[in-house]
């Protein structure tokens, strides 16, 4: 097994093989929950936790799970972690849990998680799997927050509204009201706005990649 450097893993997760921009996985939660930056951050963190935990467990057991039963075992591991995280959020981040609602259990269906378990963690050692899980998770969280911020600014004219759901009442100062008397822009808040926003972000990434490739030449 050839070892990839940690640096390469992080660069892959965050940029070259980004879950949202390149693999285009996990679209359902990505598009549905990114209506504000804080919602995006909440779901991103929950997904990252599941990814790290499942990558770790899959890597630990990789040598004694037989290939025939690996997929059901992975699914069981992921489902257990998601349920545990859902219960914990409902106990300690109740308001955020109520906002994210159905999308927490739906993390199970985020194919990025099973994908990483199968494609990476089941073939690599524990430290590499941990780094891969974290990098992929953060690489999913950043687009969620970016898209959330874009939609929130154009849709509601605010940024980081409801930050207190996540960081406690002392975080009210985080909320920025960018425009007074902003009428709101419905398209951004509704699902089509999410598609358009994601399209723009992917285009932006491609432009940057293109520029860099040209510079190298």
């Amino acid at each position, binding site marked *: 097994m050839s070892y990839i450097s940690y640096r390469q893993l992080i660069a892959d997760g965050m940029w070259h093989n980004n879950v949202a921009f390149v693999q285009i996985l996990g679209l359902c939660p990505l598009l549905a929950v990114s209506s504000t930056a804080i919602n995006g951050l909440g779901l991103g963190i929950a997904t990252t936790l599941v990814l790290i935990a499942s990558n770790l467990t899959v890597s630990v057991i990789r040598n004694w799970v037989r290939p025939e039963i690996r997929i059901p075992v992975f699914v069981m591991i992921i*489902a*257990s972690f998601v349920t*545990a995280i859902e219960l914990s959020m*409902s106990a300690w981040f109740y308001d955020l849990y109520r906002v994210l609602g159905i999308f927490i259990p739906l993390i199970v269906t985020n194919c990025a998680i099973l994908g990483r378990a199968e494609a990476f963690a089941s073939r690599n050692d524990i430290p590499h799997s941990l780094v891969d899980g974290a990098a992929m998770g953060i690489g999913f969280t950043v687009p969620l927050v970016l898209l959330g911020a874009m939609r929130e600014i154009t849709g509601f004219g605010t940024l980081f509204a409801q930050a207190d759901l996540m960081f406690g009442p002392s975080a009210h100062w985080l909320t920025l009201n960018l425009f007074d008397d902003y009428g709101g822009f419905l398209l951004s808040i509704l699902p089509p706005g999410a598609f358009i926003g994601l399209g723009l972000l992917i285009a932006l990434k491609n432009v940057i990649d293109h520029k860099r490739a040209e510079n190298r030449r």
Partner: protein
Amino acid sequence: MMRNIAIGGVLLALFAMVGTGLVSATYLLTKDQIAENEKQRLLGSINALLPASAYDNAIEQDLIFIRDPIISGKEEIPVYRARNGEEDVAAIIGAIAPDGYAGPIKLLIGIRVSGEITGVRVISHHETPGLGDAIEIDRSDWLLSFIGKSLSSLTEAEWAVKKDGGVFDQFTGATITPRIVVKSVHNTLLYFQKNRKRLFESPAYQGEAT
């Protein structure tokens, strides 16, 4: 061959047990906190309609479930009874407006024994963001216009939005949503007037509150 299948099966069962163990442990650890959160949320919604000083019973346990085709459709809805000592104070009814612009709108309506509204809140809805969602208390003060209204303070015709000749505002670009909320509150008042005695005298539901 058979041996491989057996080992696979045992391994799978083992993982199922470990996974279930993890979920059970988390459940036991978080169960009390979750129940407490849900109770606080319920009390929070109730106290937004009726100040906690107005009653002294454990209101979250003093509830009954009712079903009525007009105010709840096919679902069972909770009615919480606020009492002060022996005296009935108010009922908090979880009415459902079944015919919202995009699905049912769940309400919480506080009605004093005298038939006067103490407040209305929207618990959940699927109305259009930016148009119909002015029924949320966080977005506009519209719901506050119900406070103090009763069947005797307004005539039958006045229980409607202004466009239909009533006293309640509609929203720019959205008439359907406020119209059905007004209708639902009105129907709930009529139901309350007709069933008041029974609502307060029925024995409280014994079991887990939802």
